[in-house]
Structure formats: structure tokens, C-alpha cells
């Protein structure tokens, strides 16, 4: 009917992905609901660990990585659920499905936004933990592990959250689906982090890094391939 849209039939994948990431970040900047919930929850978990494990300075360094990763994983679940619920509850997912674009953009867009939220929470928890427990967490190797671990977690988490959100028991269901499948990420991230914190030689750390990279690649690819089957009807 009019020449405005006829010339470009389908929006490019990265353009659409960027639009979705922008949308999520803007909405979050406005409401701040997701990040504040994740952050408060993370701090409460660390507090609980502090008393539950009775961390004296000597044992503390060896459990640091474990406490941090369990915290991130629990807080991450919260973020994943809320991010997907925002699309489902007001039927917004239909709006995304109606757009003339590759539907993988929905997966990548949500995944990158979820990753951003998780990294923001981690970026706040790290200095806080460093100060509370007098431990230096700003090692480049450690930050790399945090990045790789978060990517793996969010890659599969976004996929499973998009399924769990359709169930009535979504808050319960997502952790049940997610935790057993992301166990390799948890183990590799905790062990890799502890190794960097303990100053172990690279030879001992490299297997953990490799495992994380393999996991990330495999599950990003798998999620990308099956996502269409989840959103189509």
C-alpha cells in the first residue's frame, strides 16, 4: 500500500536483538524491580551463609567461591523468571512473534538482557563481598570465569524459563528444570574461581575453563536451534 515498508521485508537478526535488549534495559531502568529483587535476594543469601557456615577467616577463603556461585545461581533464577513473565503476562510475546523478523532474535535478545542483569548483580556483589570479608576478588582470571559461567547459565536458563513461564507453578518449576542441567557450570565455575583465588597454576585451572567454554558453545547452539519449537504454536 505504501512504499515505507515494502523495500525491507524482514528485519535483520542483530537489529531485532539489539531492539529487544534495549527494550528490556529501558524497562528495567524505569522500574528497577528486577535488579532490586535480585540484589536484595543475593545479599540475603550471603548473609544467611555467613551465619549458617560460621565462616572464620581461615576457612572463609576456601568457601568463598562456593558461596558466591550459589548466590548468583539463586538470584539468577529470580531474574530469569521475571524477565520471561514480563512477556507472557501481558501477552507481549505475541507482539514479538508478530514482528517480521527471525524469531531467534527473541532468544538472543532476552538472553543478552538476562546476562546483563546477572552481570550487574555480580558487579555489585563482588566489591561488597570483598569489603565485608576482606578478600580481593578483582583478579582477571576470576572475572573471566564469572563471565563464562554466567553466559552458560543464562544461555540455558533463558530457554528453560521460556518453557517454565507457561506453567502455573513457574517459580518452582524453573529451578527444578535448571539446576540439574547447569550442574557442570556450577562445578566448573566454583572450582575455577577457587583455583584463581588460591593462586593455583594455570595447568590446573585450564580444564575448568575448557569445560565452561565447551558448555557455553554447546548450549548456546542447542538453545538457538530449539527455541523456535518453543515459541511457535
Amino acid at each position: 500500500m505504501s512504499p515505507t515498508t515494502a523495500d525491507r521485508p524482514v528485519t535483520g537478526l542483530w537489529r531485532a536483538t539489539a531492539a529487544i535488549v534495549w527494550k528490556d534495559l529501558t524497562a528495567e531502568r524505569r522500574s528497577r524491580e528486577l535488579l532490586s529483587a535480585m540484589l536484595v535476594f543475593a545479599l540475603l543469601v550471603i548473609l544467611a551463609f555467613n551465619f549458617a557456615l560460621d565462616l572464620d577467616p581461615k576457612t572463609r577463603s576456601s568457601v568463598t567461591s562456593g558461596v558466591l556461585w550459589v548466590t548468583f545461581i539463586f538470584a539468577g533464577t529470580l531474574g530469569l523468571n521475571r524477565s520471561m513473565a514480563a512477556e507472557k503476562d501481558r501477552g507481549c510475546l505475541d507482539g514479538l512473534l508478530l514482528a517480521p523478523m527471525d524469531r531467534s532474535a527473541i532468544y538472543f535478545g532476552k538472553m543478552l538482557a538476562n546476562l546483563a542483569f546477572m552481570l550487574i548483580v555480580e558487579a555489585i556483589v563482588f566489591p561488597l563481598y570483598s569489603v565485608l570479608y576482606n578478600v580481593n576478588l578483582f583478579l582477571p582470571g576470576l572475572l573471566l570465569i564469572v563471565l563464562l559461567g554466567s553466559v552458560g547459565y543464562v544461555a540455558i536458563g533463558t530457554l528453560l524459563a521460556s518453557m517454565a513461564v507457561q506453567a502455573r507453578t513457574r517459580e518452582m518449576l524453573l529451578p527444578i528444570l535448571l539446576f540439574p542441567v547447569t550442574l557442570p557450570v556450577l562445578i566448573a565455575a566454583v572450582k575455577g574461581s577457587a583455583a584463581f583465588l588460591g593462586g593455583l597454576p594455570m595447568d590446573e585451572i585450564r580444564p575448568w575453563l575448557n569445560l565452561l567454554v565447551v558448555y557455553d558453545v554447546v548450549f548456546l547452539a542447542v538453545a538457538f536451534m530449539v527455541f523456535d519449537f518453543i515459541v511457535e504454536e
Partner: protein
Amino acid sequence: MPVVSNTDAVIAVHGLTKRFGLKSVLRGLDFSVVAGEFVALMGPNGVGKTTFLRILASLSRPTRGEVWVAGCRLPQEAASVRRRLGVVSHQPLLYGDLTAAENLRFFARLYSLPSPAGRIDEMLHLVGLYRRRHDPVRTFSRGMQQRLAIARALLHDPDLLLLDEPYTGLDQDAAAILDGLLRQIAAQGRTVVMTTHDLGRVAALATRFDVLARGRIVASASRQAMGEAQLLRFYRQAVNGEVAA
């Protein structure tokens, strides 16, 4: 047997069947719409109007049958057809935390519109929300959200507009504004298919009335044939299976 696609036929549906698991909702439905028509699709609750509209909107796949929308076969060519469709459902499909303008900007990006800012302003003026464009959608009344939803549906200048019970939850004023908008849209020559319960509203707007019952279109009549009272009788008879129009 493939339907001969008439170049004027914006929608051509032949033998459409839709099953959810083992339950059949649409059974061998035939339907066609020519450019410029305003079709009111009526039917009892739960008969499958929304299901049918979702299939036309490429949101749902047909179990069996042929569906052609804007010259594209669904579901195979769904990606090509989306650009030419505008959809308004009973949920607003809007992000509450974003402002009206931001919502439209987001969709303008998804549709790759060349000069979004101008188009967004134009649409906001059309639906009378320009002054509220920097307010979060969360603060909008149901009527205002519906108007913004229409702005979103028209943003990319679609040939075909699909509306699913758009009057749901609107008060008199909002409904009157929606009337005006739909009249404008029809006057622009766009093709419209609207499902509705509200026979009164539809009697004045639509050029054609179809009744969906028992899984298929059981009756169809053009507007010249009747006024509102006749329309009600026509609808009741069709649903009770008394007349084949």
C-alpha cells in the same frame, strides 16, 4: 486442491481444521475476504473466533487446510506476511514500564521503519495520545491502552487489520473514539476482519457479517441486506442452525 488465489482476495481459507491435542475447534472452515472489505466475525463464546484470528495472524499453525493471507501461504511463508498485518488483540501487547512513545519506538525498530520519529508522532496524533506520549503505559486506562494498541498495529502501514474483540472493557467514550478510528481506517481502504460480540457497534461499521459456529462459517450476509434488528435475528438463526444464508 489449491485455491485459485484471486488477485483481489486478501484472505483465502479453504478447509481449515485446527485441533488442540485431540480436540477439534475448527472443522473444514472456508472463508475469503476481498480488498477493502470490513468483515465482522461473530459467534458464541468459545467457538474459536480467537483461534481463527490467531491462525490468520500467523501466530498459530493450521492442523490441516489452506490459508492464504496477502498472497502468502501460511504457515510456510509466515515471515513474509507479517509485515502486511496489523493485529489488535484483547490484550494490549504493550510494555507497561515503557512510555507510549518508547513502545512505538520499539516496534518501529522491529519493523525496520525508515523514519520512525515522524511516523510515531503521526500515529500518536491519530489516536489522540500525543500529549501523553511520555507517560508510562502502566498509567493508561484500558481505553487509552487500546488506542495505543491500534497505533502500534497501524505503525507499519499494514494492508490488513485483524482485531479480536477490541471493544472489550471499554467505556462509552473510549468506544466512541474507537468507532471513529475504525471508520477512518475503513475509509482509507484497508481490509479489516474484526471479531466481536457487540452487534450494535458492528452493524454500522462492517460491510459484511459472518457467523462462526460448530467449527465453520455457517452464515454470511452483506450490510445492504439488513439493519440492527435484522442482524440480531440473522445471528440467532445462524447459531441455532436454522438458516444457511
